[in-house]
């Protein structure tokens, strides 16, 4: 069997996690290319629709990552994001999406090492899960 390369869509906030991602890059910390970053201004702007879209398009996992509580450039966007993730984490598993396929993390601007570590761990988790059921679905 061909080795499975998962696709992880990561919505990262412009302020903290994106800085950490960049820091990981400049610190020459490798993280798997399976993670595709979509920079958003704030995790609070991540509409549940975007997550559903990514999963239905065939992403094997979606990560939303932003500032730690209290760090949000926009004061409270990350709290709002957390509720939305909670909501989707109630809905999606009912349709067979494993909980690992939707993740939320807080990664601060200086946490380049953590960023790389989390990406590696996440890709490992998803690789172990195997391809998402949505990859080949005919009805989307």
């Amino acid at each position, binding site marked *: 069997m061909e080795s499975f390369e998962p696709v992880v869509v990561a919505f990262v906030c412009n302020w903290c996690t994106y800085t950490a991602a960049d820091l990981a890059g400049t610190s020459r910390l490798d993280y798997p290319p399976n993670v595709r970053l979509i920079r958003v201004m704030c995790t609070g702007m991540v509409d549940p629709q975007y997550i559903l879209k990514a999963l239905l398009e065939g992403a094997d996992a979606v990560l939303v990552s932003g500032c730690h509580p209290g760090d949000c450039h926009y004061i409270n966007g990350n709290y709002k994001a957390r509720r939305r993730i909670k*909501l989707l984490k*109630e*809905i999606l598993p*009912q349709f*067979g999406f494993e909980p690992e396929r939707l993740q939320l993390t807080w990664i601060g601007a200086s946490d380049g090492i953590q960023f790389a570590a989390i990406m590696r761990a996440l890709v490992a988790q998803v690789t172990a899960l195997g391809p998402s059921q949505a*990859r080949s679905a005919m*009805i989307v």
Partner: protein
Amino acid sequence: MVAAIEVHDHDLTAAFRTLSTAVLTLETIDAVFVPMRLPCGSAVMPTLVTDPAHLERIDPLAPSFALNAAKVVGQLTRNRKAGIGKIAVLLRPCEIRAFVELVKLNQGQTENILIIGSDCLGAFTNHDYFAFAQAKGEDASRIFYQSMLSGQEAVLEGINLSGACRACESFLPTGADLAVRLWGVATERHILLEAQTDKGAALLEKLQLPTGQVPSEREGVVHALVDQRTDYRDAMFAATAAAIGTLEKLAAYLSHCVNCYNCRVACPVCYCRECVFTTDLFDHDPLQYLSWAQRRGAVKLPTDTLFYHLTRMAHMSTACVGCGQCSNACPNGIDLMPLFRLVAHRTQGVFDYKAGEDLAAKPPLTQFKEDEFQEVVGIGE
């Protein structure tokens, strides 16, 4: 405060007529909004009445639930400028709950209305009701409520309550100003009225009705019914969960969907003026379809079917009141109600929220706390 309206000749509809007429004749009330049997057939529809003479055709206990009237009440009240006057509305409990949700979404106002809610006896599906009304004619409603209240087998002529009603454990009108009590009440003698708010109490006072007393056996009757409904509901949840456990199964469940979006039109809490799925956002580029097909080998059109239903769950499941109108509305017979109720049960549960129950409770996604749901943060290495 409890009042009673006498029932003569087992005619509960007449008692409702008495109540509505009395309310409408009050100076403070400009109109009543009640279910009426339309003159031109068996259909029972919400009607705005200003002339008491028209209340002759009132039919609140018909097993008909053509639409959830919450949206209409919203339309009657949502204009924030000078209202159209005071209206008393007679609603089913699930209509009240939906209306409460709409008020939270600024799609309706409670200021100028007085909500009269009735213990709900349930209803048939639209399809079943047509058949039943055809068969029973003018007596359809009386046969239905007598059968229900006597505790006999609900099935009549092989027709049972709709799935939504059989799974409904919230058949008492919470959130009404004035509640009409039927379950466990000696309805052969009277129906009871109970004020649930100050507004309701004031109205009841004006009506100058003889006082009544809620019989002690009511509690037992209600309890038993709640248990029965809950059992049904849980069985339904289990069956549905099994039927949708994977994306493939969900797709099968929804395979007859033609993206007509009737379910969202019928949904009382789907309040968008225009659904996002009907906006230009989903006017895909022709190349896009080809790209989807190429990636998967084949793609069903119209696309975005699962996307639509899942999005609706994300948007509206925390406001779902379980009225079942989505199932009623589907032209292709997809039973959406069990699916949505199941999802709603879960999502409302995690936020400790019950749609429509409390006007003061803020919808889950409009608030947050600083230290909550820590369990969803982190990838659990």
